[in-house]
């Protein structure tokens, strides 16, 4: 019979390290394509370093990466397929065990087995969107915006 205390400090720190690693790759890729936005990269790195202790810091790091990627897309330094990969990296960072608040029973393989399908689906969706965005159909962009917004709103309502 266990006393009512937390007994997973070692596992928690490993999860935080894994999350920090994914965050570093995420920010490095974003800044690599858009060097102009390096201050946001530094701020994101600082936030990612604090993510193990403060969950909101992880969100800020993801937002920083999103901002850098947005600048890159707007300035044309970040190609859309690379933006799709960057978006998937940001998602992977947010799904890392240290941030998700749902520790895994096994090691990294277990995480890849559980999150892999979701990340694959996310990457596929991003690539498809990139393909659609590059298509030269007059009404396609706004149709895509409305469609994705409708799906997002439906998901928010369903989540309660």
């Amino acid at each position: 019979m266990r006393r009512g205390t937390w007994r997973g400090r070692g596992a928690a720190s490993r999860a935080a390290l894994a999350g920090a690693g994914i965050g570093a790759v995420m920010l490095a890729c974003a800044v690599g394509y858009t060097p102009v936005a390096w201050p946001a990269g530094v701020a994101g790195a600082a936030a990612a370093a604090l993510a193990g202790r403060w969950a909101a810091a992880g969100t800020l790091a993801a937002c920083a990466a999103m901002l850098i990627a947005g600048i890159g897309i707007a300035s044309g330094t970040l190609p859309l397929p690379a933006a799709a990969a960057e978006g998937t990296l940001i998602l992977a960072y947010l799904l890392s065990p240290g941030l998700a608040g749902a520790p895994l029973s096994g090691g990294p393989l277990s995480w890849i087995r559980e999150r892999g399908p979701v990340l694959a689906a996310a990457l596929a969706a991003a690539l498809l969107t990139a393909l659609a965005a590059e298509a030269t159909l007059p009404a396609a962009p706004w149709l895509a915006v409305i469609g994705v917004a409708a799906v997002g709103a439906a998901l928010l309502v369903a989540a309660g």
Partner: protein
Amino acid sequence: MTELDLTWSATAHYRRLATVGLLPLLAAVVLGYPGYLVLAAPFVAALAVASRRPGYAARVRVQVPDERCVEGEDILVQVSAEADGPAAAVAVRLALPAALQASGPAARAQGGGAALEASWPVTARRWGRWGGQVTVSVTSRGGLFTGTATVSLPQLTVYPRPPSLSQLALPADLRSRIGDHVDRRPGEGVEFAGIRPFAAGDRLRRINWPVTSRRGSLHVNQLAAEHAAEIVAVIDAFTDVGPPGETTLDRAVRGAAGVARAYTRAGDRVGVITLDAPLRWVPPGTGPVQFFRIAESVLDARGHESYVSPDLGRIPRPVLPPGALVILFSPLLDERAIGAATDLRDRGYPVIIADVLATRPQPPGRSASGSLALRIWQLERQALRYRLESLGIPVTGFPGEPRDGAGTARTLDGALSRFVRRPVRGGAR
């Protein structure tokens, strides 16, 4: 194990994903740039894939091996929780009233096993009947949803801790029941009471030969009778003031429990009456079972609000036997309790009042009128005590035993010691 339906809701992690995903979506709409949709697409896809809420239940078993204890003792609460589906974590949280204090934070189980066994020692800080709740939270794999369910703890009974009472105050006139207390009347005890001339029927072994040879006629030793006392502890439940755990009612109930334990151990008959609406009582009895009967009955003293004056005439005669020593534990703040004490004294019962009020009103600020009001209040209390003493009802203070054993507060022994050598008399005034 009890199967509980979980109420599922999105976690903060789900909302975080949705928020981060919405940012590029909004940027695309506001700025009219479809390229940003590429950043939003992974989040929309991930939420779409994982947005199905888990529908499984949880099995919970709550065990309290010993549901009864005395104030200050520990009760062990054991909880086993298990998710019926693939869960990332199971957490259990114990919610208890202030009278019970659990040591240790919320317990969590991690991993795919999705099961948790935890136990908490819970310290009972205040007498009464208490409940509690165990909340089980199951986090789904991925951490997007959490399911919660609540199960009630079995009712825990905490008996008052009786203060020690080694010297017993007795009524001046003991009843004719065989007991351990030496009476003034002659009888068949073992204590020497005097010498008198021999009378027909006296036992030959009681002849005092030295006195007989000096006086020239037969004389016998006279022995004192040994009788049991009848004690009725009365609890004033009309008023309950003071900090939680040390209220006047807390002290009164502990005092009554101390009286019950000490006198039942001495072989006396003890009963209890709770001045409340309706009046509640336990007829006098003896033995350790009677102590627990009294302790069980006083647990209901708390939480009744009433404006009805108690009619002591409705109490059956066996509950309040003639000549019984009445010990009233009261803060003397309610006229109904004071009236009950004078009523009992008028009926010829020896009555002692143990004043359980340990706090005094705090005047707002340090104004002169506040200090004057406090002074008047204290004078009124003194006048009340004097009036009761003049009616033949002695008043003693019983502020309660110190919790750490090192305080200066008076004990129940100290409160009743003055009546040990000078028994309280009843009868007509």
